[in-house]
């Protein structure tokens, strides 16, 4: 146990980034050695594309983790945005306008989760779970006047949206990967260079001290959850182009993989430590791992179980609380 504590003490921000980088490198080596065709352009481009979906959906989870919360509504918002966009576009609304509507609604939904949980931070998980469930159910009822069966919505997906996730683009990677990288850069600059971004770290590190330093913690909490829903909705809409049809359960894997990516990157779930740069590494590690596991022809269910097993040692490293005798 003492050794664990020492190891943890060594893990500064740079240390964690280096550790995550090494893990990613080792995983890629394992992939190259064990999986046939891993180091091919086709596979690398596909892996990056899959990573970009998770990466965009995880921006919000990373912000939530930095202020010491967790957003369980991401999966539901992804699904709701996915079928919502298809319904709006097929209802004759111009796609640009439809996207703005969805993003605004998502911002409002996230704001509601944030506003309710800002008074009872301990119940954030339950609030986001409740809001997410209710919203997805409501969107499904609203959408169902079109053709729905088992959560699948039929309709025509706009061509440019499919082009966003197409591997046959003139640039090396799918355009969606570029979108992710731009959003990632913006998030990192936002967190490091802006007053609001530093405020989020202050809140996560010490709530009371942040309040004394005149950081508007309540407002920022609401803003963070609002942003989380917006990035989740963006991921859901991009996924519509990838799958070519609406499906309300498309976000299901993101319920826990967003949390896992944040954890694997080394951002503490109790707040104040980490950042989106680390989370990008976490997203890449997770996606490469999933590619390797698929290469071993493991089913999605088996992959899920392995992911669960992976979370435990990570939380042991990063989110251990001290023994009560040390807190007296």
């Amino acid at each position, binding site marked *: 146990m003492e050794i664990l504590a020492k190891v943890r003490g060594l893990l500064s921000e740079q240390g964690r980034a280096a550790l995550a980088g090494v893990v990613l490198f080792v995983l890629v080596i394992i992939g190259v050695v064990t999986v046939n065709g891993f180091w091919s352009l086709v596979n690398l481009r596909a892996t990056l594309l899959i990573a970009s979906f998770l990466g965009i959906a995880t921006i919000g989870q990373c912000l939530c983790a930095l202020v010491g919360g967790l957003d369980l509504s991401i999966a539901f918002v992804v699904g709701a945005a996915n079928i919502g966009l298809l319904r709006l576009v097929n209802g004759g609304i111009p796609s640009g306008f439809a996207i703005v509507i969805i993003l605004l609604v998502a911002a409002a939904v996230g704001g509601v989760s944030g506003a309710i949980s800002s008074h009872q931070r301990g119940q954030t*998980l*339950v609030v986001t*779970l409740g809001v997410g469930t*209710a919203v997805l*159910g409501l969107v499904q009822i609203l959408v169902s006047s079109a053709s729905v069966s088992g959560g699948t919505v039929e309709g025509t997906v706009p061509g440019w949206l499919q082009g966003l996730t197409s591997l046959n683009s003139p640039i090396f990677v799918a355009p969606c990967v570029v979108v992710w990288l731009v959003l990632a850069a913006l998030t990192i600059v936002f967190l490091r260079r802006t007053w609001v971004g530093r405020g989020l770290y202050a809140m996560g590190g010490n709530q009371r001290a942040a309040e004394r330093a005149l950081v508007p913690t309540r407002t920022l909490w609401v803003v963070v959850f609002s942003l989380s829903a917006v990035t989740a909705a963006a991921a859901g809409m991009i996924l519509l182009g990838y799958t070519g049809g609406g499906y309300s359960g498309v976000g299901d894997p993101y319920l826990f993989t967003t949390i896992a990516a944040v954890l694997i990157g080394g951002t503490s779930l109790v707040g104040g430590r980490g950042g989106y740069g680390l989370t990008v590494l976490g997203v890449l590690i997770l996606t490469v791992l999933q590619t390797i596991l698929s290469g071993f022809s493991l089913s999605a269910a088996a992959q899920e179980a392995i992911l669960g097993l992976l979370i*435990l040692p990570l939380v042991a490293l990063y989110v251990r609380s001290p023994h*009560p005798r040390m*807190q007296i």
Partner: protein
Amino acid sequence: MPELSRATSAAKSFARRQTSLVTPTVLFAILFILAAIRGAGLLTANGVDGALIGAAPVLLATLAITTVAIAGPAGVDLSIGPAMTLINIEIVIELPKAGITGPIAVFACAIGLGIALQVLMGLIIAFLRVSTVVVSLALYLILDGFNTVLLPEPGGSAPGWLANWGSETRLMSPVLYTLIGSFVLWTLISRTTLFRNIRLMGADARTAYASGVRLIPTRIGAHVITGVFVGLASIMYTGLLGSADPTAGTSYTLSAVTALILGGASLAGGRAKGLGAVLGAMDIWLISYVLGTFNFGLNASYWVEVATGGVLVVALLVGAFLANEHLGHGWAGRMLRGNRSH
């Protein structure tokens, strides 16, 4: 009349202590009247027994996670749904392979498996010192994945004596006896020293430690109690379903957690009542029953989702409001006092 005023003040203090039960009780009354009006068959022996087996799994699941919620910190057990699913598969598929189909053996195995899963979780929580919600999240993934690997497609049929539970028409049925037995067990357990220590540990682990409560055995004790009820809930679930299903049971996580919150449990630890859990679970079941009487067709399950999520959020808001009033910080209290405090 000093006796009268003493009685009134005693009644008042009792009422104040029970504020957490106000929301689920009021909701129960409203839903029960709605259910009685909309579903004419509910108040017959047949209807009551259908209600019992329908509500029993979520009822016992909520009662199960109540102890872990009391033990804190952040004691939401998200793994309850997949855990019930695993025991369901064991009862229907794996145990008959070993020749275990008799009632006593099945009860023993289900409860034993429930305890084993919970003790494993308790050990991880105690030694890694990570909150219950994170550990149970990992366990949710592990079990949910494992269930589908174990049984890719729904199938099988429950042992004969258990399969009859879902179509029972008598009022005095094994379902009722098992439920009554579970409540008696809960009442006995909640009066033990162990349970008092669990409460103290959940309310304030430092105080508990300083008062000589041994934290690790107490935590394991909490998980053993939870495990017993997880086993009972799984048996009820198997009786209701009559077969095995690798995914259907996972939704019990959301219903049980919602019922727990609705029943006035605090996720900070230390505060949760068995009676609240039972009322909350009855509310959850009544919501889906009442919604089922409307003709929503294909949308029925979505309406249940909307109602469950909505009720969960509203219950949290009302709970926060009542807690605020209880401390005298609320606007209603200020208005009554003529707004002198500010």
